[in-house]
């Protein structure tokens, strides 16, 4: 037992959870879903919430669904819910590929997509995916809800625009064109670690040229982000090897790399270059980019 004392709440309905949260928000009351980041932080006493509101018993928050052209990822959708494609078309395999890179198998059984966004670790795969794919965060509080673009929601390392009395009830991802292609690459020295860099790219191919390019880099900077200059340099041209080389070098030059004891900035910049190149090659290489 290492966590500081807290009062435990286990509501069965979303409204009940929001009601409790509105009362305990001022005492550092927190939502717990998967707990795979929050509980380690509590064990290390980096977090000492006085109240935990456990949403695991709220059936309406489980799993994913497609509504119109949107994939709705509810608050209790686990990483493991994406092991098998959650929907047909390129988005299902894309999310399955990304999910395989998140921590380890037992962690993926508990950890949630929405929890990853709420935690906003710079090395979060789901944060990169939500930002790159144009996701929307649904933040709910008692009596209201607001929609926040993922790129605006994530403000910095472990910092979001979520208010203390709000919880993420879902994240919405637009379902891309059925002909869309994608590539993801994450560099890691050891499986399951926090990655020093990763890249996700999606585009469609029309008449030998690529269009609607979305290219994001995660893990390398304080927040994941799309590199619009790289996207513009790739759009409406054939994706040749020379273009891939150009794009990966441009991406590496644009970022402001994080620095730590193991990975100095210039090394991380090199990893970004490689990650972007390999993500583009993966997208180029196969229809649903393996």
């Amino acid at each position, binding site marked *: 037992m290492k966590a500081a004392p807290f009062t435990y709440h286990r509501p069965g309905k979303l409204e009940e959870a929001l009601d409790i949260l509105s009362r305990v928000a001022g005492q550092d009351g927190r939502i717990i879903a998967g*707990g795979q980041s929050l509980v380690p932080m509590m064990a290390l006493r980096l977090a000492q919430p*006085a109240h935990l509101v456990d949403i695991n018993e709220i059936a309406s928050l489980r799993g994913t669904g497609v509504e119109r052209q949107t994939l709705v990822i509810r608050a209790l959708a686990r990483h493991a819910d994406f092991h098998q494609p959650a929907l047909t078309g390129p988005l299902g395999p894309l999310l399955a590929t990304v999910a*395989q890179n998140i921590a380890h198998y037992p962690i993926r059984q508990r950890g949630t997509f929405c929890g990853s966004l709420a935690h906003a670790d710079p090395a979060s795969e789901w944060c990169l995916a939500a930002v790159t794919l144009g996701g929307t965060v649904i933040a709910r509080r008692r009596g209201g809800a607001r929609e926040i673009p993922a790129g605006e929601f994530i403000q910095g390392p472990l910092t979001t625009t979520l208010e203390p009395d709000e919880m993420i009830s879902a994240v919405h991802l637009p379902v891309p064109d059925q002909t869309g292609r994608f590539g993801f690459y994450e560099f890691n020295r050891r499986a399951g670690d926090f990655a020093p860099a990763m890249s996700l790219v999606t585009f469609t191919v029309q008449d030998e040229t690529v269009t609607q390019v979305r290219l994001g880099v995660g893990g390398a900077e304080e927040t994941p982000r799309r590199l619009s200059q790289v996207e513009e340099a790739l759009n409406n041209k054939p994706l040749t090897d020379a273009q891939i080389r150009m794009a990966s070098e441009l991406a590496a030059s644009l970022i402001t790399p994080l620095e730590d004891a193991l990975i100095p900035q210039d090394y991380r910049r090199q990893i970004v270059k490689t990650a972007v190149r390999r993500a583009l090659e993966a997208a180029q290489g196969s229809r649903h980019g393996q």
Partner: protein
Amino acid sequence: MDSKIALRLDINSRDYHVNVEARQTLADVIREECGLTGTRVGCEHGVCGSCTIVVDGAPVRACLMFAPQAEGKKIRTIEGMAEGDDLHPIQRAFSDNHALQCGFCTPGFIMLIAAWLEQNPAPADGEITGMLSANLCRCTGYRNIFRAVKQIVAELG
């Protein structure tokens, strides 16, 4: 705030009635309140995997769940694997392949492998190594644990 919560935990198809603080991890309650000390506690923050148990069919870190979260779930620990003196096939495969030395990590590995094989009965070699990377072993190395998994997969096939 420190008031205790009365819980009924279903562990290996047996009911355990315990009074715990909310902040007690499931791993600690299984060991200290239920007396099932086969589940090991190593790092206590989700890294090492030695506390891995099976909750509703999924392998999870018991140090990353608070005990009240496990009420109503079906919990399986290493004590529920052997039947009397008959080892579970995974335990036998570990023995056959010298897949343990000090034994500290072994219950976590066995529970991980048991639950994982339920969902991945015919894995490729790369999938096995990916799964085994979840838990730390610091004596035998992973080669013999990998061989043990291969033996079980062959027996299942």
